[in-house]
């Protein structure tokens, strides 16, 4: 049933053949336009600096210079920054998934006074721009002595995991038949063990979606690290790249080599989660 929602042939079949051909042409042209910047990025990353701007554009560099990559990763402590990014992103993803799944489960399945108004508050915070709480949060973390550590970047994710994720998981949990819970309840399982044994195993597309969004968002986050990390050794990759740009701003080939490497983890996560991704988006767009 889930496969059916994204099977290759669904759309209006009555489309005329010429319209179909135009669609293919437009789609392929558009996809090429999306890919061209990536291609230029990779191609530039392999050129000697002196040939970056040579006209007409050389898509396949005449001289391939792989050393750009090794140099880019040693001119700045690249792998240190890469590791720092992981040190932040991994706990954030885990914290977000666990704490948003817990809250989502309570909102989807349980009854207790005050739960409904609380869920309304979750929805209300969806619209709240982060800037409104940014400065007092900064002052709070400064007061706690957390500025200069990763705590301000990690701890908030443990506290609810974000309104959007709670909402998304709750909607998904609602699509799971309640009889599955009831059966487990009769067997004497607690709520927590129902969440772990019944709900989570059936929700992997939604969980993969939340994990992917969270990883990509954290990996690419710039403002958070910019505010809280001052020591260069503690920089995450985005700060490191920006720093690289500020000191070597004419070394485009090296900059692009560093950027290509920075994109790879997100692409990898995206491709790994892709199946879940497509299904998850389709399923959560549907009312339970």
């Amino acid at each position, binding site marked *: 049933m889930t496969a059916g929602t*994204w099977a*290759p042939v669904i759309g209006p079949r009555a489309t005329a053949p010429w319209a179909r051909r135009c669609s293919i042409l437009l789609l392929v042209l558009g996809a090429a336009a999306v*890919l061209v910047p990536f291609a230029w990025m990779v191609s530039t990353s392999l050129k000697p600096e002196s040939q970056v701007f040579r*006209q007409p554009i050389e898509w396949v560099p005449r001289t391939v210079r792989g050393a750009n990559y090794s140099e880019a990763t040693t001119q700045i402590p690249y792998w240190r920054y890469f590791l720092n990014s992981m040190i932040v992103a991994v706990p954030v993803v885990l914290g977000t998934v666990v704490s948003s799944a*817990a809250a989502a489960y309570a909102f989807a399945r349980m009854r207790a006074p005050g739960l409904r108004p609380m869920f309304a508050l979750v929805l209300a915070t969806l619209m709240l721009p982060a800037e409104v709480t940014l400065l007092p949060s900064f002052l709070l973390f400064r007061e706690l002595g957390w500025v200069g550590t990763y705590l301000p970047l990690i701890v908030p994710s443990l506290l609810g995991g974000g309104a959007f994720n709670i909402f998304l998981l709750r909607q998904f949990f609602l699509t799971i038949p309640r009889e599955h819970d009831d059966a487990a309840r009769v067997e004497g399982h607690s709520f927590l063990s129902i969440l772990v044994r019944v709900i989570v195993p059936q929700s992997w597309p939604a969980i993969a979606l939340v994990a992917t969004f969270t990883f990509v968002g954290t990996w690419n986050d710039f403002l958070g690290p910019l505010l809280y990390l001052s020591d260069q050794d503690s920089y995450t990759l985005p700060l490191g*790249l920006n720093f690289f740009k500020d000191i070597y701003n004419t070394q485009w080939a090296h900059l692009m080599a560093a950027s290509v490497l920075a994109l790879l983890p997100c692409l990898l996560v995206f491709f790994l989660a892709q199946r879940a991704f497509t299904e998850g988006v389709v399923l959560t767009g549907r009312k339970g």
Partner: protein
Amino acid sequence: MARRRLAASGREALAAYGLVSPWVIGFVGLTVGPMIASMVLSLTDYGLVNPDAARWVGGANYREALTGDPLVWQSLKVTAYYVVLAVVFELVVGLALAVLLNVGLRGVGILRTVYYLPAVVSGVAVSLLWLLIFQPSSGLANAVLGLFGFDGVGWVYSTTWVIPAFVLMSVWGVGRAAFIYLAILQRIPTNLYEAAAVDGLGSFGRFLRITLPLATPAIFLNLVLAVIGKFQIFTEGFVISKGGPGASSLFFVLYLYRVAFRYFRVGYASALAWILFAVLLALTATAFRTSRHWVYYEGERQ
């Protein structure tokens, strides 16, 4: 029996509170608390450097922002310019893309992945890529213009072209919006189109009479999300143009950051944050208020 049920429901309530407690702590400590604090701060001249000297200034920050600080209006203006263009493109191009992707072609899965790629790789690395593309000397953007016989422009180094450059960059990521459209388009029953074809409607007629009205809920959702999201543009501006040239790409959040962390005026920056909130609230409320005239809902049918 009754007591046992009560005990059971009490246990359920306890378990539920346990599960939502992290969120409650976060909500109180990192949302409500900071909101109140931000409100109070915005009425003071609190500074990062010498916080103990902070004084109560009442509405002076708001007065300064709205009447005495030309950069506030400049940043609102360039942000609005960017948001309008970026949102229009996102709605139109996104919908067109979704319609094309929904035509039902073989191999469309690969194309879908390609279109979604830019959404996965935002941030500094991509900003650096676009900074290179926009190099006037011989970046990709001007090379493409040259291909069609146009003269190159200054892109992010030109007061005229800097905002269109950011818009172009945002159009590149339009696949994300197309995904939301696609989810809705795929639920339009095929027999509607077949009936319309029998009635003699052409492709375009079917788009106007069926696809467009049924897609309005997704258009509405994308509109609200896009306005809120694009209004908060920061990283691209910080990395690519640093607000320049002059203040021609001084996006609102960029200015807020500068006020707080370069001029250390936290009180004033808090007032700016509330102004941002008010603007977004007003725009969202307008969208909701007008929505019943143009958004089509299929009743409560599932």
